């Protein structure tokens, strides 16, 4: 696997990250290094092997849909980078 300019830009976009030209070069280098090492897994034949996504067999556990947390609106809005009234504030997202 080779991470080139096009691919590093694509990965940055998927990650919602903006890279400086310098960062781009560094990430290209170390991602190539790391992914090169990860290719070691290709030494193993995994044909037909199940994918283990979770340490244990687990069933969904459902609980009753009742409100247990109190009204934390003010505390939560206090954490917002920008808020107005009872709302989180962001730039306009729809065209006029």
């Amino acid at each position, binding site marked *: *696997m080779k991470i080139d300019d096009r691919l590093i830009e694509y990965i940055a976009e998927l990650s919602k990250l903006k890279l400086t030209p310098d960062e781009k070069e560094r990430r290209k280098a170390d991602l190539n290094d790391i992914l090169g090492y990860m290719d070691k897994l290709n030494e*193993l034949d995994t044909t037909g092997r*199940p994918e283990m996504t979770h*340490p244990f067999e*687990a069933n969904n556990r459902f609980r009753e849909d009742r409100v247990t947390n109190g009204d934390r609106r003010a*505390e939560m809005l206090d954490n917002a980078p920008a808020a107005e009234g009872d709302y989180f504030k*962001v730039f306009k997202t729809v065209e006029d």
Partner: protein
Amino acid sequence: MDANDIRGMTALELGKAIRDRTISSPEATRVFLDASLADANRGADGVNAYISIDEEGAMAAAADVQRRIDAGDVLSPIAGVPTAVKDNICVNGGVTTAASKMLEHFSPPYNATVIDKLKEAGAVILGKTNMDEFAMGGSTETSYFGVTANPWDRTRVSGGSSGGSAAAVAAGFAPYAIGSDTGGSIRQPCAFCNLTGVKPTYGSVSRFGLMAYASSLDQIGSIARDARDCAVALSVLSGPDEKDSTSVIDKPLRLCGAIHGEGAAEGLKGLKIGLPQNCLEEGLADDVRARVSEASDTLRALGAEVESFTLPLIEYAVPAYYIIACAEAGSNLSRYDGVKYGFRSDAARDMDDIFYRSRSEGFGTEVKRRIMLGSFVLSSGYFDAYYKKALQVRGMIKETFDEAFQRYDMVLSPVSPTVSYAIGGQIADPLAMYLADIYTVSVNLIGAPAVALPCGAGEGGLPVGMQFIGKAFDEETLLTAATVYQDATDHHRRRPPLKTSIKTTQRKRETDAI
């Protein structure tokens, strides 16, 4: 009682002294706060174990617990005993930062379940400890708040990611501490700081309120001076939680034997321990290999049957782990978008700009690297070759451990290939940092419990750690064996040298220049 005597006690000893009225909880809390605050005031010359210290809150909590103890409430064996909590575990009332600029001012509107449990048990929280940013690292060098020095040698790292929790206990700023372990983040700093730590079975401790790094691997656990303290802290932390659907409801951990040393008289008679020979070969420093071999002799002398065997696939654990951990991290950290909480860039000019600039300016280098790795291995065209493959290998690794546990009650291995290393020494080479996790990550991939504990001195007198890896939900065997070993040895009683003059080391984030 002298302050240094108090700082030298285990959590259980201090809990008993408080019950016996030899000392009050506020008196004990004051001692640890003074030591912690004095270090914090040393700035760049200090250990830098904490991100925040809650002097007022801790004293108020201690007074409250003391009133309950005086009224005859039996809360727990560690009621009134202070503790320090890793800063990725939400505590309502102060800030919880995950050592990131992204959450520098984040004030959780709720407590993590483990915090509620600690408070019910009468624990007094002194403050929040330093860590690698979002728990991504093995040296606490990626913290936005600067590196934590190792109390054994302040030019060296404390390990990570729970480096602040380990350094706090090693330096006598707290009798025990709470950490989290995704790929060795409790065990490796314990090995570097001569402490005992437990990474519990996945699902035995609620993750509610733990800032997610890799959800199928993360687990909260305890860090202390001996296995008894670890066991008693774990008995407080563990248990089912409705708020964490992965918490296990029908497998309560039995820890009484480990805490009270029941059956310890018989030593380790009949205990079958597997020692993977291939974990003691190339890549392992001589001093670590020697100490682990000596420990296996000691365990044998205590009655255990120690047998060498080959644990296959170990060399595939690191690549499988980093693919899975980064994939989960990339998904988990997509929540940091600069909208509802966390950092927002002032330079943002439109909605997309808020996402891009806030994340680019708010995350540090290692976090960005792992998010990008995660985005890549999950992306269309590469998903099967990397992520799916890693999940299949994870299953194969689980099978090799299942097989080992049919023959052995536990597996003995090193924790880290080396003793603690110089601050700034390895951080510029991320792949080398990842490879140093070889002995710890399998445990997280398979969800098993493991206990790290000191087994002697290596190069320069620095601590060497070993780990006991066990069957799922069999913490008791591991902690009991650790207690028997510690009752027969003195390695865990070694304390870092007291330093009066300290060489100044850099306290900026080591990754900023990389």
